[in-house]
């Protein structure tokens, strides 16, 4: 089961349709089992039952999740595949001690792959859609996987399949989510 985590300003918010529902539809189309939870309503049972987790994005003005890093501590010991999308990347990086700084990016950007990785295999450059109000640092224990215009666009943990993408792969780059799901499938 894939845990889809809603980081929006409240449970069942108007932003849910924009940031969570497209991920749910993609998972539904791919035949994966999933359960969606708001980040404030996540239980230990939910976390224990998950084969992987996707932390969804939020609206640009929506940064309430960043004020509750304590609610993302579970990521430190999760060790199963995680995909943090935009605000989700910020939450993942923050759990591992990396901060964010102001850095707005809105629109299509050319992403360059920096290091070999199964999720990006065979891709050197691609266009991606970003809607972000900040830039995210690379936490200790992580590496930068991709960048655009000097800005880190993708990170991965050096030992576990924990990924963060600053852009939104659900827009024009669904292949990235498919490949991430492939990592979940490969786990024993």
């Amino acid at each position, binding site marked *: 089961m894939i845990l889809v985590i809603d980081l929006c300003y409240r449970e*069942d*918010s*108007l932003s849910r349709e*924009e940031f969570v529902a497209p991920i749910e539809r993609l998972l539904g189309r791919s035949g994966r089992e999933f359960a969606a939870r708001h980040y404030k309503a996540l239980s230990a049972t939910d976390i224990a039952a998950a084969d992987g987790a996707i932390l969804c994005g939020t609206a*640009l*003005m929506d940064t309430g999740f960043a004020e509750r890093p304590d609610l993302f501590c579970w990521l430190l010991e999760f060790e199963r595949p995680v995909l943090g999308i935009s605000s989700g990347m910020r939450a993942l990086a923050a759990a591992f001690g990396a901060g964010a700084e102001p850095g*707005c990016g809105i629109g*299509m950007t050319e992403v360059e792959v920096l290091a070999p990785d199964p999720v990006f295999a065979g891709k050197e450059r691609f266009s991606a*859609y970003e809607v972000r109000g900040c830039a995210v640092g690379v936490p200790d224990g992580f590496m930068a996987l991709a960048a655009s215009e000097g800005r880190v666009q993708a990170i991965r943990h050096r030992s576990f399949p924990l990924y963060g993408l600053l852009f939104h792969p659900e827009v024009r780059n669904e292949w990235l989510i498919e490949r991430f799901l492939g990592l979940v499938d490969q786990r024993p």
Partner: protein
Amino acid sequence: MRLGVLFSGGKDSAFACWKAMQKEEVVCLITIVSRNPESYMFHTPNIRLAALQAESAGLPLLEMETKGEKETELLDLRRALLSARERFGIEGVVTGAILSVYQATRLQRVCYELGLWCFNPLWLADQEGYMEELLDAGFRVVITGVFASPFDESWLGREIDHRTLDELRAVARKDRITLTGEGGEFETFVIDAPFFSRRIVIEEGSRVYRNHNGVFRIERARLVGR
């Protein structure tokens, strides 16, 4: 949260408005009236009738004119949102964008500059599911413009009911248009919605059509009780 809906009178912005009303407080509709029929962002043939829709919805309408030139229309959008913030205290904006990265990028930028939240409740919507939900929710929608092959004049002024939706599905499969018209293949006008107090009756319309491009202009319309 007090929200303004960027409203064209077509199905997508009306549906987005309805979605927003279920979660937040919609305090005004905002229409950008373009004098340029080729406007990248805002052109729609019956935009002046948004006033009738706003009246039925019981919401104030903020109309802003633009010459509709590619880059200055963004300044006009900014002006409109600023005005809505001043007059109605909006904290965020709702749009009916589904797939257009071009539109979404520009709207997101303007909203961010102004410190406004931006909501796109139809973003990446499943086209089939959306069209079914639209009809099931009680929206009544008329095709007011066609801009792609194989649409002929007979589509102009037609209401999208379940039968017409079946025909649209067949066209979408065969001619690679989007079922929602998001690619600009057709435009719509909402004559009834779950948040309207009265429905709109079109009493007179005119058609201009040539080579798979046509417009159904509503010449006379009024509100009537259900």
